[in-house]
């Protein structure tokens, strides 16, 4: 590796609940929020508090990053991993991870979560989607009826 301008070996990430994760620099590359923080520092060890991410979620994100940063893993193995990763998540896990991905500014993981969430609301009613995202409708029943009529074709 040519780009060894700073000699950071281990990065310590501290989740909202105080749990601590030690990771190698290549694991956090995908987390742009963390990476830009590291880039500004000139130290051998860094510890970074992440007050918006819980330990369980951070553990999953790190697991994902490790798998995808690995050069030994084949494309197929990574796809298989992604498939299993989504399968063992509950609906609200996905939403929390999406928020964490947004906060950490992770491009590909964000895409991955967005796709998993889109699959949850695919072919579902407006009521289901509202419920899933915990959106409270601020339309009056009359307004909603009016809007449904405007795009009548979509609500058959």
């Amino acid at each position: 590796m040519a780009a060894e301008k700073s000699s950071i070996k281990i990065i310590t990430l501290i989740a909202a609940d105080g749990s601590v994760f030690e990771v190698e620099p290549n694991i956090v590359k995908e987390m742009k929020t963390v990476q830009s923080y590291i880039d500004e520092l000139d130290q051998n060890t860094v510890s970074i508090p992440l007050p918006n991410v819980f330990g369980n979620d951070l553990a999953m994100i790190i697991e994902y990053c490790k798998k995808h940063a690995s050069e030994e893993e084949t494309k197929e193995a990574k796809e298989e991993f992604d498939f299993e990763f989504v399968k063992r998540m509950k609906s609200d896990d996905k939403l929390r991870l999406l928020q964490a991905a947004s906060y950490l500014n992770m491009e590909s993981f964000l895409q991955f979560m967005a796709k998993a969430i889109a699959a949850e609301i695919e072919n579902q009613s407006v009521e289901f989607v509202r419920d899933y995202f915990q959106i409270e409708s601020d339309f009056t029943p009359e307004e909603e009826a009016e809007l449904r009529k405007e795009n009548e074709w979509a609500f058959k």
Partner: protein
Amino acid sequence: MTQSKKKADCGDHTDLITDLPWNVIDGILKYLNIRELVGTSILSRKWRYMWMSVLQLEFDEDFFYYCEEYYEGPEISRIMMEILMLHSGPLYKFTLSLPSDFMQIDCLDELILFLSTSGIKDLELQNLGFRTLSYQVPSYVFSCQELTSLDLNGFELSVPPNFGGLKRLIVLNFHLVTFESGALEKLIPGFPLLERLTISFCSGLECIDLSAPTLKVLRINSEGNIKTISLKNANNLIDFSLLDYRDEDSESVGVSCLIKSLPKIQRLVMEIFSFYYKVLYAAGGIRQSLVDSFSSLEYLQFVGTKLCEREGVLYIVSVLTNTPNLVELVVKNYEYGDYDDEQEPDQTKELESNGCCLGQLRKVKIEIGKLPAQLSISRDLLWMKRASQKAQVEFIHSKQ
């Protein structure tokens, strides 16, 4: 973005999604179909206009099947145009897939005219019902000056009189397109940045005569209607594949490939019947102008029947004499059954002459259907002492 400005309106309630940045919401919306997308407009006030800013829209087969249950053609056109009119801001990708056995849609021209003003970059038009219902490619397609990628499937294509080219186009795919005579040749010079071109099972193209100095990838799939392919100035071509699935009993002579020089070619795939190799060989074609033109070739694949016949082997070997940097060679022969020709020509003398050293060759895969005579091809190909000692060689005898 001025979201969350009116947060007070919704009281203290914050949901799990609405206040996330636009790129996150757009990331989810882009996986929804158009009906689900429009459906989000009634989630809450903040969502009312959100879907209208998506960067891509797709009218897929399901959209049309769904609409067909409730509406007639003109109404479906109206719905489509309404959606486009509601959309605001840039629209980078648009996909239309008209299903087979579908009614006529009359808004195509209007629709594409609208897109041409929306900064569209990636346009995909598919008419899967091309066997029963034909559509002309709307001439406004060539007014979409921001296009970088264009995909046409199942359309008829003629060049509009005022065609001025698409200066940014990089990727161009034709599938099952019926070309007006000479249309392809008129179009291609209008795409000065074109890098990838696919021509797949199109008609109206007996002779493809192209000058494409920027082209990097060219894929041609034919069902036997293409007679000659002539490529001039293909100096930047790195990947060329020609697949010709012709009925073996067909009387036609087969495709001949006239390519002067391919100095940068890295990947060459030829999947054609063996008598075409004969044609290629007899006519010179690639072979005679080879001298230094395959010096970058890394991957070479030949698929066809009767590859074990003398001409086939000689053709492959003639290519191999000019491929010093070849890494992988794949030869597949889909001919099965017993070999009826007892005589096994002695080819080794010819094969040994003037070979270049295949020192980079790492992988050889030879798949044959007939034994034992077909082994001769394998033996002959590998007779060359020039193959690298490290090469991994795999023989597969597939019995269908």
